[in-house]
């Protein structure tokens, strides 16, 4: 483990209910800040489309009676080896040394979309109105805020989650709640095959194993 701080989210797939509160709270906070709006196209039309930093998707697996429905929040994973950073021709895309957050400097971005091609997770979205690349900032303007009460210095999605499915913390600090959740509940990274070392982790659903055990006992 590196000594540097690496802030990240750990997402508990056991308790996510797919309510999209993290999506709306993320949009609300990040469209209102000094970095500029996350614009919407055709917002009241038949086919609305807009910039979001966070999405909740839903998957199914298995066949009856062993089926499961998994709600799957997805945002920038703040990779420790971010493939989107070295490809940027202007240096607008960068990873902060002090806390590992991957950010885009909107004033330097030329909107070439190359970084979005270089992200296997599709975590980046070009804002159609501003024509710059946007992505999750881990609410960098909240977590270091000096005006918000200390209890609110967390990403908006974490505060909004009604089931506490999102754990925020330093994954390089073995004592943080995030690290301990990864350690104790076998947190995993997405697409490990590309060696991007995502900082965000997911906690696998254990409910299927619990059900299976109960069935075996009966």
């Amino acid at each position: 483990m590196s000594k540097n701080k690496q802030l990240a989210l750990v997402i508990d797939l056991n308790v996510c209910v797919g309510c999209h509160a993290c999506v709306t709270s993320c949009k609300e906070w990040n469209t209102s800040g000094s970095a500029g709006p996350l614009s919407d196209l055709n917002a009241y039309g038949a086919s609305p489309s807009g910039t979001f930093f966070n999405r909740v998707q839903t998957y199914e697996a298995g066949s009856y009676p062993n089926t499961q429905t998994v709600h799957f929040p997805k945002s920038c994973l703040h990779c420790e080896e971010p493939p989107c950073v070295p490809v940027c021709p202007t240096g607008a895309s960068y990873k902060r040394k002090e806390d590992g957050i991957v950010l885009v400097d909107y004033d330097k971005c030329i909107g070439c979309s190359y970084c979005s091609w270089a992200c296997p997770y599709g975590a980046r979205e070009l804002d159609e109105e501003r024509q710059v690349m946007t992505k999750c900032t881990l609410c960098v303007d909240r977590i270091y805020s000096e005006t918000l009460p200390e209890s609110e210095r967390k990403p908006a999605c974490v505060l909004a989650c009604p089931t506490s499915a999102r754990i925020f913390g330093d994954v390089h600090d073995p004592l943080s709640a995030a690290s301990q959740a990864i350690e104790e509940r076998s947190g995993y990274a997405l697409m490990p095959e590309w060696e991007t070392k995502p900082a965000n982790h997911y906690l696998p659903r254990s409910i299927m194993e619990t059900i299976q055990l109960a069935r075996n006992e009966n």
Partner: protein
Amino acid sequence: MRPQFSIIFFTTLAGMAQGLLFFLAIADLQGDIFPAAFLANLALPTAFILLVMGLIASFFHLGRPERAWRSIMMWKTSWLSREVITLPIVMAANAIALLFAFQGQVPTWVWSGLIISLIALWVCTAKIYQCIRFIQEWSHPSTLANFILLGITSGWLLLDFLSNIWSQPSSSSNQRISSVGFLLLFFALCLKLWIWRRNKNLKPKSNLASATGIKGIGIRQISMGLMGGSFNTREFFHHQSDFFIGNLKKIILVCAYIVPMLLMLFTFLSPSPIAIGVALLIHYAGLLAERWMFFAEANHPQNLYYQRVS
């Protein structure tokens, strides 16, 4: 990936100009095959105009073209940045060669510098795509080989056309030019067919199990989290039917390769500037389709997350 006409025009126009300059430099280094007036009044200006057109096309790719100058900053890590630096160097070398050609003789160091910058530009352009390791169609040396081979092939056809409208070549040199053109087209065709076969046999390294980590059999998406489309649904797919893609492949084979090869055979037997011009035009149209397909057939793993609207 979504094919973008800005990049399609840039890579084909610049590639053709690079091929033309490459053969002019090689030929002149071999010993004054082309008269200086041909270089000064036709060949070098044509290459320069193509490069300028390519440069203009590339600006349409940017969301914020007024900030384009910033893209020279990250040359240490970014192939795109290196390309942005190399293109003006090629244009400058082209302009210097043009100035010397007006004075009657292009020195060896100018041609040598030009050749080096041309190869550097090919490498930079191809590496932009080749270095994205999870786009498996692109992440292979054949990407670079294809860019170079099609660049020199289209450049050769252009040189053939320009030298024909400048002066009627002797029948022996005409036969030589046509047979080289035929061979280049043939090699380019073989490479393209090999690339298409490789793409067809590629096994995607990522799948829904690795993308989501969900355990269990038959993982399927039932919602991508949005209904009206997003950047993710627009940028990473060609938005065409299999029928369209299949037919476009046939058009590419016919226009970019087979018809120009037949026309080369024709001009081998009876020299005709018109036939060479037609070959060049059809080849370029095919080249545009080939470059379109280069983007369309690249599968991005992020599409795993965007499979089902609801």
